């Protein structure tokens, strides 16, 4: 049996009230519709690392031998996302990595490819991550539609919690939603055309094709994680397929937004959070055709514990309310100086520091046990030379030893919160704090670590870790 061994999710903390989009003096209701917005230091890669971290909770990372990263919003045109993610997660060196993109359907394909890879025996535990941070042109309908998020699944033949029963894919050629080289904005043709001849027809076709293979009816599924570009077409397809309202996983319109490749996977993760042994789950995804996947939940689902998942992330939120700030977060504002035009970070320094910066490893002295960061040649305390073990710090907690609020350092959302943080065990690291309000920063406050873009000097995302307050568990 091959299927899902573990899952995790990530939704950024910030929410943009839809009423605040476009700016102006409109009244912004307190509990109106909103969408999830990545912080300025987040992108598809950082959100992928966060979702994967949730997915890998309690799992031996050495067991992961494959990573497939799906996205339509890779920061790099040439350079792999999966390898950056594997480094940030500190996975083993012989992990097989691949990116899969180009279409919102890429994540469904990634799940299928991962399952086929495991079935074929070329890997045993493949991490599949879907993450997107899509941008619509300011004040466009797409800007209102898209939201940011990521989901991750471990596909394995060992201790399968949710078996993959079958898949069915339809490929079609249609210019309905697209983005071209050099254009930051997603475009789409007239919506009724897109829904009728694109989304609805193809999704129904894919689900019916899957049901035919499985000798099942769409109504047989306990839960249905159905991608849709909007609430109306979501309801339309469900009706066409005869799927009951109870079976439909809440598509989170007005809360999350259309999360691109991560949308259907996030709904699948949401379904798994309340799944019971014996449930059958349908996931359907759309983009240049459609793909449907059928899952059967086993009793091992009970073993997946301590996931933040979709529910926790929906509760943890902070309202942005400020359209200008939103534009700055997405780098859509006009600046006096073009950003990142200097030569930037030395590639050789980046190469030498990758274990410290991306895997966030520190040193522990073998003589006196002192934890230190960054890597040292001579121990801070006992002066022993080159006698250290590398220790991963990213999964530990820490506490703030000192802080300042820097209004002078460039930040899209000043002040920049700078901290001296002690990682549990003793390493001291100078870290920015993110997803926080200066008001909540206190000495000795507990923090955890999150992989972020620290800056974009040289016109590239430069990744490092930041600290962030540990939030209460979702109710």
């Amino acid at each position, binding site marked *: 049996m091959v299927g899902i061994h573990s899952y995790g999710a990530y939704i950024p903390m910030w929410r943009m009230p839809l009423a605040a989009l476009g700016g102006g003096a409109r009244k912004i209701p307190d509990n109106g519709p909103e969408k999830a917005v990545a912080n300025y230091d987040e992108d598809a890669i950082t959100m992928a690392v966060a979702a994967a971290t949730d997915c890998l909770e309690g799992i031996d990372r050495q067991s992961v031998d494959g990573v497939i990263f799906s996205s339509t919003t890779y920061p790099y045109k040439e350079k792999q996302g999966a390898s950056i993610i594997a480094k940030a997660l500190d996975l083993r060196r012989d992990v097989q990595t691949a990116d899969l993109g180009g279409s919102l359907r890429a994540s469904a394909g990634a799940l299928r490819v991962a399952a086929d890879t495991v079935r074929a025996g070329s890997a045993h535990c493949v991490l599949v991550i879907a993450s997107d941070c899509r941008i619509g042109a300011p004040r466009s309908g797409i800007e209102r539609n898209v939201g940011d998020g990521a989901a991750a699944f471990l596909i394995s033949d060992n201790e399968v919690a949710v078996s993959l029963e079958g898949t069915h894919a339809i490929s079609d050629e249609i210019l309905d939603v697209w983005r071209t080289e050099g254009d930051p904005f997603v475009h789409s043709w007239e919506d009724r055309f897109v829904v009728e001849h694109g989304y609805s027809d193809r999704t129904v076709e894919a689900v019916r094709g899957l049901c035919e293979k499985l000798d099942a009816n769409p109504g047989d599924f306990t839960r249905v994680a159905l991608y849709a570009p909007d609430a109306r077409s979501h309801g339309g397809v469900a009706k066409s397929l005869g799927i009951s309202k109870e079976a439909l996983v809440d598509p989170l319109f007005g809360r999350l937004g259309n999360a691109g490749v991560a949308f259907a996977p996030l709904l699948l993760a949401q379904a798994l959070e309340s799944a019971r042994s014996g449930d059958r789950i349908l996931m359907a995804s759309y983009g240049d055709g459609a793909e449907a996947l059928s899952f059967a939940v086993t009793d091992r689902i009970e073993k997946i514990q301590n996931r933040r998942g979709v529910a926790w992330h929906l509760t943890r939120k902070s309202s942005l309310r400020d359209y200008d700030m939103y534009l700055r977060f997405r780098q859509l504002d006009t600046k006096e100086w073009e950003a990142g035009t200097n030569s930037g*970070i030395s590639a050789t*320094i980046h190469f030498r520091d990758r274990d410290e*910066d991306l895997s966030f490893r520190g040193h522990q002295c073998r003589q006196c046990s002192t934890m230190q960061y960054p890597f040292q040649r001579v121990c*801070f305390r006992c002066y022993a030379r080159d006698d250290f073990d590398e220790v991963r710090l990213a999964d530990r907690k820490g506490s703030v030893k000192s802080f300042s609020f*820097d209004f002078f*350092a460039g930040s899209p959302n000043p002040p920049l919160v700078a901290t001296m943080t002690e990682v549990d065990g003793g390493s*001291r*690291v*100078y870290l920015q704090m993110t997803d926080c309000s200066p008001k909540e920063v206190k000495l000795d406050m507990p923090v955890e670590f999150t992989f972020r873009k620290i800056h974009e*000097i040289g016109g590239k995302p430069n990744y490092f870790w930041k600290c962030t307050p540990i939030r209460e568990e979702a109710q």
Partner: protein
Amino acid sequence: MNPEAIRDKVAVVGAGCCKFGENWDKSPEDMIVEAAFDAYEDAGIEAPQQQIEAAFCGAVYPNRGTAEVADGLKLYDRPISMVQNYCATGTDAFRFGVFGIASGLYDTVLVVGFDKPKDRGVSGPSIATTGVRDLPMTPAGWFSLCAARYFETYGAGREDLAKIAVKNHHNGTLAPKSMLKREITVEDALNARMISWPFGLYDCAAQSDGAAAAILTRADLAKNFRDDYVLVKAIAIALGANPQADPDFDFLRWKPTVYAAKQAYAQAGISDPFKEIDVAQVHDCFTLTELLTYEDLGFCEKGSAKDHIASGTFDLKGELPVNTDGGLKTFGHPTGATGVRMIYENYKQLQGKADARQVPGANVALSHNIGGAPQACGIAILANP
């Protein structure tokens, strides 16, 4: 090691300083010439090409370095070296000048500190980035790292820092060559725009262009130049662990100052600095740096600085006046020049030539710089013979 090896061996017989400020119309060489010729004139040196045997320079971001000094002053066919040691650069250049004289190799040397940050088109420090972890963080961010912990431990706050800014703004009005000459109030300081908490605008030193110079000679030759020469009692440099990595840092002090003070007091034979030192110029890149330095230099007990600030101990008319010329805060902070500028001020104070800011009867004077993360401290102690 013999800590007393250099005590009283070297004399300062001349000092000079150009006007500090945003010297848009002056090149580094212009400022070097003004400072050096001011020192020549003060020392009575009429033929520097014959009398200056070597030059020791300090600058943190020079264009060409030693050549700017050689070409500016036409000092060729002799050694010129450049030192860089963060904000202690000027003090360290002076230290190598002292060693050059104390070794007996040279009779007369020139020390020049200079920097020209205002050619860079930015307000405040510019930041070069090579590694991912470096940015975006600023000197104000680094030097504020002791604030939260110190405030909580000892009950100090921004009001105490503001009083230091008010004092240094006042003193700066009395120094002819200072950059800023404007009195401020505690309210001005507290209400100014925030740079990096707890530092508002007035908690931060004025970054400026400038150059300062000193002429050193052997103590036994000093009388050939002048009667009111000044002797070098101590010249110390110490590095401390990066506070951004040090697993044993307590965020209540800057260790490099503690280390360098121990060296300097041993060299000078000082056991009770508060009683034995009459005037001090300390590194007030930010007001908190000055506050911590009172304690780190042993002028008062750890945690008691705020009481001394309240009682005016370090005011111009206090028991131990600090930053009599306005300090980095208002005199300006051209990084490489600052240590030499402090020596210039202490030299004038010891000679009784500090006019309105004169500390009566000053006989022993200390100057102090700390820079980097901060990791490097320099201390010089001068005294009347």
